[in-house]
C-alpha cells in the first residue's frame, strides 16, 4: 500500500512547484485531465495530412509557439526546451506547445480563456503548417500525463535521432530535466529510463525491428494516444477512433507500460541499473530503446500473434557445488531464440536455485503493481534441499535424484512461462538472468529464514488481514465474475490435484506390487517341477517385471504431465489472485484520496466562510493536490483494471492451451503404455500355449 502511493507525492511536488511559479488553476487542471476533446480532432487532421516528420519540421514554424510558451506554465516550456537542446529536433517543441494549449482549452475554466485564446492561433498555425507526425505524437503524449510525456519524449527524440543508444537518450533526458526544477529531474529520469526500457523490448519483439519508418511510429503512437484519450475522457471521440485500424484494445495495452512508472518506485531499473547489466548486456539493452513509442501497439499485437518468434529455455545438468550445508545446486540454463534483442540465437549460462527465486522477486516487485501475472517460481523445499546437501554421494539416493529432477523440470516450466510473456521476457532483469555469462549477485532475499523472509512473512500476514477485512464494492461486473471464476478454479484445481496425487501414489504402489509379484513368480517358477509350466511361469515373471516398468513410467507420466502442471496452475492462480488484490489496493487508494479530497474541500469551504484568505489559499492548494491525486489514482485504477483484463485474456488463452496440451500429452502417454502392455502379453501368450 504505502509504497504504491509513493510516486504520486513526487508528482504532486512537481505540480506544487510549478503552481508556485505560475497560474495554479491552469496547471492543476492540465495535470489532472490532460486530455482534451480538442486534441483528438486536431491530431486527426494532422495524421491525415501526415508528411514526413523529418523533413517537414521547419525551425521557423516550430518557434511561433514560443511566445505563447512564454505565457505558458513553465512545465511545458521546460519540457520542450531541454529536449530541443538534447536532441536538436525542432518538431518536439511544437507538439508540447500544442498539448499545452489544448489542455488549457479543454480543461480550462474561464479564468484561462484569455490566455488560451491568445495562444490558440499560434498553436493552430504551428499544427497546420508542419503537420507532421512527430509533433502530433509529442502533442498527444504530453496530454496524457507527466510520465507519458516523459516517456514519449524519451522515445521520440531517439527516434528522430536515429540509432541513438538508450544511454545517450537517458543522459539527454537527464539534462533536459536538469534545466528544470531540481525536484522534477531527480524523479523523472528514472521513470523515463524505466518506461523506455520496459517498452522497448516488447516493441522489438514484434520482429519489425529497429528499422520502422518514423511515419509508422508516429502514426501508431498518435492513434494510440487518441484512443487512449478517447476512452479515458471523451466518449464522444471514441467513434472516430474506432474508425482507425487500431481498435481500443491497443490503448489498454499501452497503458500498463505507461502506468508502470507511476506507481511504486522502480529503483532496480533506474539508470544505475543499466550499467549493472555489464558490458555484455548493455549493448543489447540500449539499442532497442530507439523505437520505443511504436513498440507499444505492436507489442500487444504480438501477444496474440507471436507466431514467428520463439524463445525456448531448457534447464539441464543439475550439479551440486560445494559441500555440506553451504553447498548448492547449480543448473545450466540454455536459451534458444530468434528474438532480435538477444545477442545470440543459442547460448547457456549457469544459475543456482536462489537466483531463480531472486529473479522472481525482482519481477514481482517491478510488474505486479501494473497488473501483470507473474509466473510463480518453484517452492523452496527445506527438506529436499537439506537431504541433498547432506547426501555425501551424488545421485546415489533415488529419492534425491527424483527431487532434483522434479525441481529441474519445474524450473524449466517456470522459465518458459516467464519467457512466454512479452513484457516479462524483455525485462532487463530477466534478460540479464538468461544472458549474463557470469555469476549473478547473490540473491539474499530468498532464504526463508533471512530477515527479508521474516519481513515478507509479516507483509503477507498484513495483506491477508487486509484481504479478509476489506471487502471491495465491485463496480465492474467482469471482475466480479472473474474473481468468482478464479476462486472456483482454484478450489477445483486443488481437488483435481489431490486426485492426481492419489493416482500417482496408487500407480506407484501398483508398480511396486507388480514388481514384487514378478519376483515371487520367479521363485515359484524355479520351484515348479513341471518343466513347461516352470518355463511359462518364468515368462510370466518376466512379463510382469516389464509391466512393472511400464506402470512405473506411467506413474512418472501421471506425475509430470498431470500433477505438476496442475500444481503449477494452482500457483499461477495464486499469482492471479495477487494481481486482483493489487487492484483492490489501488481501489483503496483511490477511495482514500476521494475521502481526503472531500475533507480538504470542506476545510476550504470553512476557511472561505471564515474569510481567512491566507488559509483559503492554502486549502485551495491542498484541494488541488488531492484532486490531482484522486485523478491519478482513478487513472491508476482504470489502468490496472484494463491491464488485468488484458492479462487475464492472455492467461485464459494460455491456460486453455496448456490444459489441452497437458491432457493430450497425457493421453498419448497412456496410449503408449497400453501399447507396451499389448506387446508384453503378446510375447507371453505363446509361452502359455506351449504348456503341455
Amino acid at each position, binding site marked *: 500500500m504505502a509504497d504504491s502511493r509513493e510516486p504520486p507525492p513526487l508528482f504532486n511536488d512537481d505540480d506544487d512547484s510549478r503552481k508556485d511559479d505560475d497560474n495554479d488553476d491552469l496547471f492543476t487542471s492540465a495535470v489532472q485531465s490532460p486530455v482534451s476533446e480538442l486534441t483528438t480532432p486536431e491530431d486527426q487532421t494532422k495524421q491525415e495530412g501526415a508528411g514526413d516528420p523529418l523533413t517537414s519540421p521547419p525551425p521557423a514554424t516550430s518557434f511561433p509557439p514560443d511566445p505563447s510558451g512564454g505565457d505558458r506554465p513553465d512545465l511545458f516550456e521546460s519540457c520542450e526546451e531541454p529536449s530541443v537542446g538534447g536532441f536538436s529536433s525542432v518538431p518536439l517543441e511544437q507538439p508540447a506547445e500544442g498539448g499545452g494549449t489544448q489542455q488549457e482549452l479543454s480543461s480550462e475554466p474561464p479564468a484561462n480563456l484569455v490566455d488560451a485564446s491568445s495562444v490558440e492561433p499560434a498553436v493552430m498555425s504551428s499544427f497546420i503548417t508542419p503537420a507532421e507526425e512527430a509533433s502530433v505524437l509529442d502533442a498527444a503524449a504530453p496530454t496524457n500525463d507527466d510520465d507519458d510525456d516523459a516517456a514519449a519524449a524519451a522515445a521520440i527524440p531517439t527516434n528522430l535521432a536515429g540509432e541513438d543508444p538508450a544511454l545517450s537518450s537517458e543522459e539527454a533526458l537527464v539534462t533536459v530535466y536538469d534545466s528544470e526544477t531540481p525536484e522534477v529531474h531527480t524523479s523523472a529520469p528514472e521513470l523515463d529510463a524505466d518506461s523506455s526500457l520496459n517498452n522497448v523490448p516488447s516493441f522489438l519483439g514484434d520482429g519489425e525491428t529497429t528499422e520502422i519508418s518514423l511515419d509508422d511510429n508516429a502514426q501508431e503512437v498518435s492513434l494510440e494516444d487518441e484512443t487512449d484519450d478517447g476512452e479515458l475522457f471523451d466518449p464522444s471521440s471514441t467513434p472516430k477512433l474506432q474508425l482507425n485500424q487500431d481498435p481500443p484494445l491497443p490503448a489498454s495495452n499501452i497503458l500498463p507500460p505507461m502506468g508502470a512508472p507511476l506507481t511504486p518506485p522502480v529503483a532496480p531499473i533506474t539508470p544505475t541499473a543499466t550499467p549493472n547489466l555489464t558490458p555484455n548486456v548493455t549493448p543489447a539493452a540500449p539499442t532497442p530503446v530507439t523505437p520505443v513509442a511504436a513498440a507499444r501497439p505492436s507489442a500487444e499485437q504480438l501477444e496474440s500473434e507471436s507466431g514467428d518468434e520463439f524463445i525456448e529455455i531448457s534447464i539441464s545438468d543439475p550439479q551440486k557445488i560445494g559441500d555440506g550445508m553451504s553447498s548448492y545446486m547449480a543448473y545450466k540454463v540454455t536459451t534458444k531464440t530468434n528474438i532480435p534483442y538477444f545477442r545470440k540465437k543459442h547460448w547457456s549460462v549457469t544459475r543456482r536455485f536462489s537466483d531463480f527465486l531472486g529473479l522472481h522477486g525482482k519481477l514481482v516487485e517491478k510488474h505486479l503493481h501494473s497488473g501483470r501475472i507473474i509466473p510463480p517460481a518453484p517452492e523452496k523445499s527445506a527438506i529436499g534441499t537439506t537431504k541433498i546437501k547432506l547426501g555425501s554421494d551424488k545421485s546415489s539416493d533415488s529419492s534425491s535424484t527424483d527431487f532434483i529432477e522434479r525441481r529441474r523440470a519445474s524450473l524449466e516450466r517456470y522459465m518458459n512461462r516467464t519467457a512466454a510473456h512479452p513484457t516479462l521476457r524483455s525485462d532487463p532483469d530477466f534478460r540479464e538472468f538468461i544472458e549474463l555469462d557470469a555469476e549473478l549477485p547473490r540473491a539474499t532475499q530468498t532464504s526463508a529464514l533471512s530477515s527479508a523472509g521474516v519481513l515478507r512473512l509479516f507483509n503477507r500476514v498484513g495483506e491477508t488481514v487486509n484481504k479478509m477485512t476489506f471487502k471491495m464494492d465491485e463496480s465492474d461486473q467482469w471482475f466480479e465474475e472473474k474473481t468468482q*471464476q478464479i476462486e*472456483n*478454479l482454484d478450489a*477445483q*484445481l486443488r*481437488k*483435481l490435484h*489431490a*486426485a*492426481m496425487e*492419489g*493416482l500417482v*501414489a*496408487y*500407480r506407484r*504402489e*501398483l508398480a511396486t*506390487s*507388480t514388481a*514384487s*509379484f514378478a*519376483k*515371487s*513368480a520367479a*521363485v*515359484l517358477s524355479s*520351484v*515348479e*517341477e*513341471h518343466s*513347461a*509350466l516352470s518355463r*511359462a*511361469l518364468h515368462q*510370466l515373471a518376466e512379463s510382469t517385471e516389464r509391466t512393472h516398468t511400464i506402470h512405473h513410467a506411467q506413474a512418472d507420466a501421471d506425475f509430470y504431465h498431470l500433477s505438476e502442471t496442475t500444481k503449477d496452475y494452482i500457483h499461477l492462480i495464486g499469482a492471479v489472485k495477487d494481481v486482483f488484490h493489487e487492484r483492490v489496493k489501488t481501489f483503496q487508494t483511490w477511495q482514500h484520496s476521494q475521502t481526503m479530497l472531500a475533507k480538504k474541500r470542506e476545510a476550504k469551504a470553512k476557511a472561505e466562510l471564515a474569510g481567512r484568505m491566507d488559509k483559503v489559499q492554502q486549502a485551495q492548494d491542498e484541494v488541488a493536490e488531492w484532486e490531482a491525486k484522486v485523478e491519478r489514482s482513478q487513472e491508476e485504477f482504470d489502468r490496472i483494471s484494463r491491464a488485468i483484463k488484458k492479462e487475464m485474456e492472455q492467461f*485464459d488463452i494460455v491456460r*486453455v492451451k496448456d*490444459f*489441452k496440451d497437458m*491432457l*493430450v500429452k497425457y*493421453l*498419448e502417454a*497412456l*496410449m503408449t503404455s*497400453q*501399447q507396451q*502392455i*499389448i506387446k508384453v*502379453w*503378446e510375447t*507371453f*501368450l505363446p509361452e*502359455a*500355449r506351449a*504348456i*503341455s
Partner: protein
Amino acid sequence: MMDGMEEVLHSETNGTKSGRSDTVDLNDSTLQVDISDALSEREKVKFTVHTKTTLPDYNKPEFSVVRQHEEFIWLHDRFDENEDYAGYIIPPPPPRPDFDASREKLQKLGEGEGSMTKEEFNKMKQELEAEYLATFKKTVAMHEVFLTRLAQHPIFRTDHNFKVFLEYEQDLSVRTKNKKEKVEGLFRSINRSTDEILLAATQKDVDDYFEKEKGFLLEYHAAIKDSTLKADKMTQAHKTGVADSYIKLSTGLSQLGTIEGPRLEKFINKVSDTFEKARKVEGRVASDEDLKLSDTLRYYVRDGSAAKDLLYRRLRCLANYEQANKNLDRARAKNKDVHAAELAQQNACERFEHMSARAKEELNSFKTRRVAAFKKNLIELAELELKHAKAQAQLLKNCLQALQEE
C-alpha cells in the same frame, strides 16, 4: 474364473481317473452337481445345491436342496476324518463367505459421503456393489468346485455322507462346533502339527519318490502362498487404487470443464468420458487378473495344502507300520502275542502299501490337474490382458482423434 477352473477340473479328473480305475463308469452324467442359486440372508449365504444323477442309490434322478456354508465344512470334515480316505487328496473346503471387506468399504464410503460429489459417490457405490457381487459369485463358485470335485471322484462320489448332503431335504442341523469341541480341535491340530514336524524330522522315508514329493510340496506351498499374496496386492492396487482414482480424475475434470466454460468444456468432457471408460477397463483388468491369476494361485495353495496333508497321513501310516514291525520283533523276542502282532504288522503293511499306491496316483493327478489349470488360466489371462489393453489403446486413440478434430 471358477467356472473355468471347474471345467478344467471336470476334464482333468475325468481324464486321469478313468485311466487308473476302470471299475467306475466316469460318464459326466452319472453325478452332476451344481449350485443353481444362492441367497444372501444377513450373515448367512444359502446355496441351492442342484443334483442330476443316474446312480441307483439316489431316490430321484434330479433334486435340489438348500445348504449353508457350515454344512459344506461338515461334509469336508467327514471326508477328512474318514480313515478310508487317508490315501486321497481331500478336496480343499471352500473358504467362508466373507463380505466384511465390502461392507466395511461401503460403510467407509458412507462416512466419506460429504467429501465427494454426488456423482462421485454414486460411481464409488456402484463400484463397491459390483465388487460385492463379484465376491459373492466367487464364493458360490468355490463351493460349487468343492462339490464338483467330490462328484467327479470315483471314490468320493459314492460316499454316504455326500449322498446325505446332496439328498436330505431337511436341514442337516450341523451346528458350529461348541467350545469344548473347538478346544479339542485346536488341541488336535497342535498335536498333529507337532507330530508332523517330528515325523518330518525323524521319519526316514523308504520311498525316494515321496521324499522328493514332500520336499517339492513344502517349497511349492511356500512359494505359491507368497505369490498369491503378492498377486492379491497387485490386483488390489489396480482396482481400488488406480481404477478408483480414475473416477476422481474423471469427475474432477468434468467439474473443471464446467468452471472453464465453453472454451474447454467440450474438450475436457471428452477426456473425462475417456477416463471414465478407461476406469472401467482398468477395473476389468484388475478383476480378470484376480480371477485368472490370483484365484488359480489361491486354489492351488489350498489344494497343495491338501496334498501335504495326504503326505503327512502317509508318513504317519509309515511310522505306524514301522512301529508295528518293532512290536512284532519285540513280541517275537518275548514270544508273546506274536500272532496278534503279526496281524497288526500285516495290516499296517497292507495299509501302508495301499496308501502309498493311492497317494502316488493322487499326487500325479494333482500335478496334471495343476498344470492344466495353470495352462488354461494363464492363456486366458494373457488373452484378457491383451483384449483390455487393446480396448484401452483404441479408446485412447479415438479420444485423441476426436480431440484433434476440434
